[in-house]
């Protein structure tokens, strides 16, 4: 892993930029451990102060230091993305690999379920659910829910990969080497599936965080919880732009741009790196 990172840093400009952006994001998230302010409390500092050395992102109309508040927001948004990613990867890998390798009836049942989920309109359902839960949707709950909706695309993708891997001669070699079907899936097929999974995970992160922002801006999630989306929600509630408190909107937007761009550039450079065609050119000179 370390050599891979080192190689990418040295030779790929996109990766360098992505690395910088994402390191900033992660450091911000980690800084929450030492935050002097509790994000749930309001009116702790003077309101509407523009960015300064004491308050790098300024303060908002609710008397909160935006820098530390955004640190929590970043942490929460990242956690949400990660929870969703984990839940959806596990389901996608399970469904994809079982359906692909077993085929037959099991495949058809799993794919019917898969396709049903694909056609579900996620946003309206989430809006409906959040109305029903009346703003009590916690971060964990939202993460798991998004995970339950975020797996079908990748499930099919993984399944088609496994289907083609099954036909390849080395799968037969493994069979005649005495390897059990489960071990074949793990030893022979997973190494092909994982790079695809990694690439789609980044996509998934982008999707889930974006969903969260959408829901929060509409005020449908737990608005006392700091996330990138709720930051924008509160700024809108207090008509930040009209009041001239531009840094209240600027901060989450800046963070969002860093995060999304960072993830996208990471996706792009890693994708090229793991592409089997460039892999061969990389093996020793």
């Amino acid at each position, binding site marked *: 892993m370390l050599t891979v990172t080192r190689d990418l840093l040295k030779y*790929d400009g996109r990766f360098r930029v992505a690395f910088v952006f994402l390191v900033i994001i992660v450091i911000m998230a980690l800084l929450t451990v030492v935050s002097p302010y509790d994000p749930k409390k309001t009116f702790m500092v003077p309101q509407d102060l523009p960015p300064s050395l004491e308050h790098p992102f300024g303060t908002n109309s609710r008397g909160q230091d935006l820098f530390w508040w955004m640190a929590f927001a970043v942490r929460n948004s990242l956690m949400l993305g990660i929870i969703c990613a984990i839940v959806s990867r596990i389901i996608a890998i399970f469904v994809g690999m079982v359906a692909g390798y077993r085929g037959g009836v099991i495949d058809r049942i799993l794919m019917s379920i898969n396709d049903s989920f694909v056609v579900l309109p996620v946003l309206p359902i989430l809006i409906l659910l959040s109305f029903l839960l009346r703003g009590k949707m916690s971060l964990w709950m939202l993460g798991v829910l998004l995970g339950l909706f975020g797996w079908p695309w990748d499930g099919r993708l993984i399944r088609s990969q496994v289907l083609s891997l099954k036909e390849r001669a080395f799968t037969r070699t493994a069979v005649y080497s005495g390897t059990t079907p489960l071990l074949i899936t793990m030893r022979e097929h997973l190494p092909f599936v994982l790079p695809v999974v990694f690439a789609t995970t980044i996509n998934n992160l982008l999707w889930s965080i974006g969903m969260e922002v959408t829901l929060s801006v509409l005020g449908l999630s737990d608005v006392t919880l700091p996330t990138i989306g709720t930051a924008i929600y509160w700024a809108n509630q207090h008509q930040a732009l009209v009041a001239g408190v531009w840094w209240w909107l600027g901060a989450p937007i800046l963070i969002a741009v860093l995060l999304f761009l960072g993830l996208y550039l990471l996706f792009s450079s890693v994708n090229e*790196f793991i592409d089997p065609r*460039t892999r061969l*050119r990389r093996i020793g000179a």
Partner: protein
Amino acid sequence: MSLLKMEDVRAYYRTEVYGISRSVRAVDGVSMELHKNEIYGVAGESSCGKTTLIKVISGTVKPPLRIESGSIHYNFGAFQMDMRKIDAEEMRQNVRWKEISYVMQGSMSVLNPVRKIIRSFEDIVGTHQGIPDKKAFQEQMRGHVMKLGLPPDVLNLYPHQLSGGMRQRVAIALATVFNPSLIIADEPTTALDVVVQRGVLHMLKDIQAESANTVLLVTHDLAVHANVADRVGIMYAGRIVEEGPTQVIFQAPRHPYTEHLINSLPMIGDKTVKKSLGGAPPNLADPPSGCRFHPRCPLAMDRCRTETPEMIMLSERHRVACHLVEEGRA
């Protein structure tokens, strides 16, 4: 009369990715001449550089492939040119398919699977010449295809409706539509059955005999060369190691590699033990020093490890690059 003359051509693939730079020396000092009205066979195994040789000869040199040095002269009757000075547009208009065409290993790469065969003909002719009258063109194509011994209604079928052998013959018909001076056939029958291979090769020979043009046949199958080629050039690791008339190569090969290839050919009716060669074809990114065959040559001398052998003319048409031959030891 020389149709094409190559002098000391070097063509390398240079790749640089993630800090690892590599130079694959696929064609490394090849000089050869193609005459008019002949079938020239290039024999060699995988990774001997024959595919790159074809790219160089046909002028399809794109990065990461680069011609590092050497000259290539075309002499197609009407015009003579230094290949390195032709620009891409002129290549497309005047040379490609009109003077030089190719038949490749997988005919499906030439025939569009979702269009009828006649459309592939229209595409190719249209790009190079334009088709003013479609009906007349279709009649012309029917005539062309029939002359080659194919049923004319083949033009109205889709590629998947034809057998592999028929597709390959259609690919040859496509390649001869402008009656080019040079037809390059790259392993045209490798994937085909032995009976079909016979038919396809006969067709190629008949075309060559009738239009008196030149065919460059590239295949690793020496038995095919014995029955089809007039002259054979043996390629090893980016270089030509021996070249001569077919009879001479098969009856009196001088280079140890050629000798080995011919002696190890299995034949029906012959159960005598054939020996195999040790080692493996070299990696063109890091080829052996001196004579590239020396690690596998049973007769290698010290000189072979350090000095690259020069081509020696054994007779007017037979040449070989080997120190043993030069010193009269083989």
